[in-house]
């Protein structure tokens, strides 16, 4: 990620969530397993033709995008990484950690899992209270069940509709569910590799969520159609017909565009809030409009 991008993210994150993120880092950072590189070795597309990108290595601290039209194989690629494919998925791809095939228990045992995933699912199906569910998830990951409270506090910085530990998971809105899933990943899963599938559909503060999930020294893979999120990635893999067709590295002129998008996005966010609060748009938005035009 470029210096400019990190600075923009820095400026746009509210003080409260910065504090919470720092606290969480201190208390839950997984120091034991820190993979340095994630390598995707190419497989085949939907017609059995080999991936044009035969191999790509992703280093610690990098945000990498996956882009492409619907049905192009973005979610399949994410799934390959999630399960550490070893030629045993339909794509035939192989995933290496630090240049080596990962040990079998890393695939399944949540206590050893290197991968945290925010999938496209917008709702929980489990018939449990938020508090009970989070405590049990912490237990499954070998973490302190009291982290549940922290997850809820953090989730409430990402969504406008507060989540309460006594709520049943199944009644949560899409935004509340996604905020909770993101906060859960940051606090409880806290894995060195984070996979994010289309955060822009989430109804939460997407940029803040991405910053929260990326943490320090993590590898972040984000599937996205969103220009702002795509340009927050230093590189992006382009998918077509199930194949990794090319890798684009972002450049200076893209980063200039990013700054513009970023301003438009904060303006839109402000407008959204104005409308939500029942105010008239013209009164508050004129200053921001001038800024974007400039």
């Amino acid at each position, binding site marked *: 990620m470029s210096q400019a991008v990190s600075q923009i993210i820095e400026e746009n994150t509210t003080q409260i969530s910065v504090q919470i993120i720092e606290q969480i880092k201190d208390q839950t950072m997984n120091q034991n397993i820190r993979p340095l590189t994630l390598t995707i070795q190419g497989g085949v597309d939907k017609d059995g033709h080999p991936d044009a990108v035969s191999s790509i290595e992703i280093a610690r601290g990098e945000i990498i995008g996956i882009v492409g039209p619907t049905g192009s194989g973005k979610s399949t690629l994410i*799934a390959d990484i999630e399960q550490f494919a070893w030629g045993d998925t339909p794509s035939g791809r192989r995933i290496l950690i630090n240049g080596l095939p990962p040990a079998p228990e890393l695939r399944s045992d*949540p206590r050893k899992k290197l991968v945290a995933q925010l999938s496209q*699912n917008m709702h929980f199906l*489990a018939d449990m209270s938020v508090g009970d569910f989070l405590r049990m*998830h912490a237990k499954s990951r070998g973490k302190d069940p009291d982290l549940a409270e922290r997850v809820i506090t953090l989730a409430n910085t990402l969504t406008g509709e507060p989540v309460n530990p006594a709520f049943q998971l199944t009644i949560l809105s899409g935004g509340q569910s996604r905020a909770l899933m993101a906060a859960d*990943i940051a606090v409880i899963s806290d894995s060195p590799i984070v996979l994010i599938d289309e955060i822009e559909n989430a109804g939460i503060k997407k940029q803040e969520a991405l910053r929260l999930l990326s943490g320090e020294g993590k590898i972040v893979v984000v599937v996205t159609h969103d220009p702002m999120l795509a340009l927050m990635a230093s590189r992006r893999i382009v998918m077509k017909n199930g194949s990794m067709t090319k890798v684009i590295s972002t450049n200076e002129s893209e980063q200039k565009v990013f700054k513009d998008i970023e301003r438009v996005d904060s303006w839109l966010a402000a407008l959204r809030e104005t409308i939500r609060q029942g105010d008239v748009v013209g009164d508050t938005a004129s200053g921001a409009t001038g800024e974007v035009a400039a």
Partner: protein
Amino acid sequence: MKMIVAAGTPGSGKTSVLMHAVKDLLRAGHHPALVKIDCMWTEDDVRFKRLGVPVAVGLSRDMCPDHYAIYNFEEMLGWAKDQGADILLNETAGLCLRCAPYPDRALAICVIDVTTGPNSPLKVGPLLTTADAAVMTKGDLVSQAEREVFRERILEANPGCRIIEANGLSGKGSAELAELIAGWPDVSGEMVLRHNPPLAICTLCTGELRVSKEHHRGVLRHLDGFMEYTGE
């Protein structure tokens, strides 16, 4: 001959998961044969036949499909042997969750659908608690956190079991399942069940249709748990 008994509630994905595993077993040079047990009707045999493996169907009709499977295991093994198979896969109907048709030396697999929620591993009973492996299906429909909580619940119900996360659509997990099947020891000698079948000594078993206790004889359990025997 290896013997695999796959159980799980209807719609949990038993057939889809087994089909992927059969493909992997065939690729590895094994000769699986499949017996599908159901109650009234099935077309799963047509799906399996497309894979080019020997398939037989047993319909239990008005009998409990698990009872029916249990006293027919020997016949199934004989049939599989005649087909030149080295692995007998038995897919059960999967119904009442009260018993588990697992012989002690067979590989017992419980297929369980993650979308049924984290309480379901506690409800499934001996089907899960006496299984060697639990195959979690439909995990793509829930978040990672939910999958992990579900997994924790399976381990609460059956601490020693091997858990395989599988997807009947994409084939995820089938390689791991096929490897487990291929490495299981052959069955031999007399086998016994891991869990007793349900108590079924009542007038309903002999065809009584009227409801309420006044029409029924045998060992009856009241809603409050009190058990009584009525009859001769």
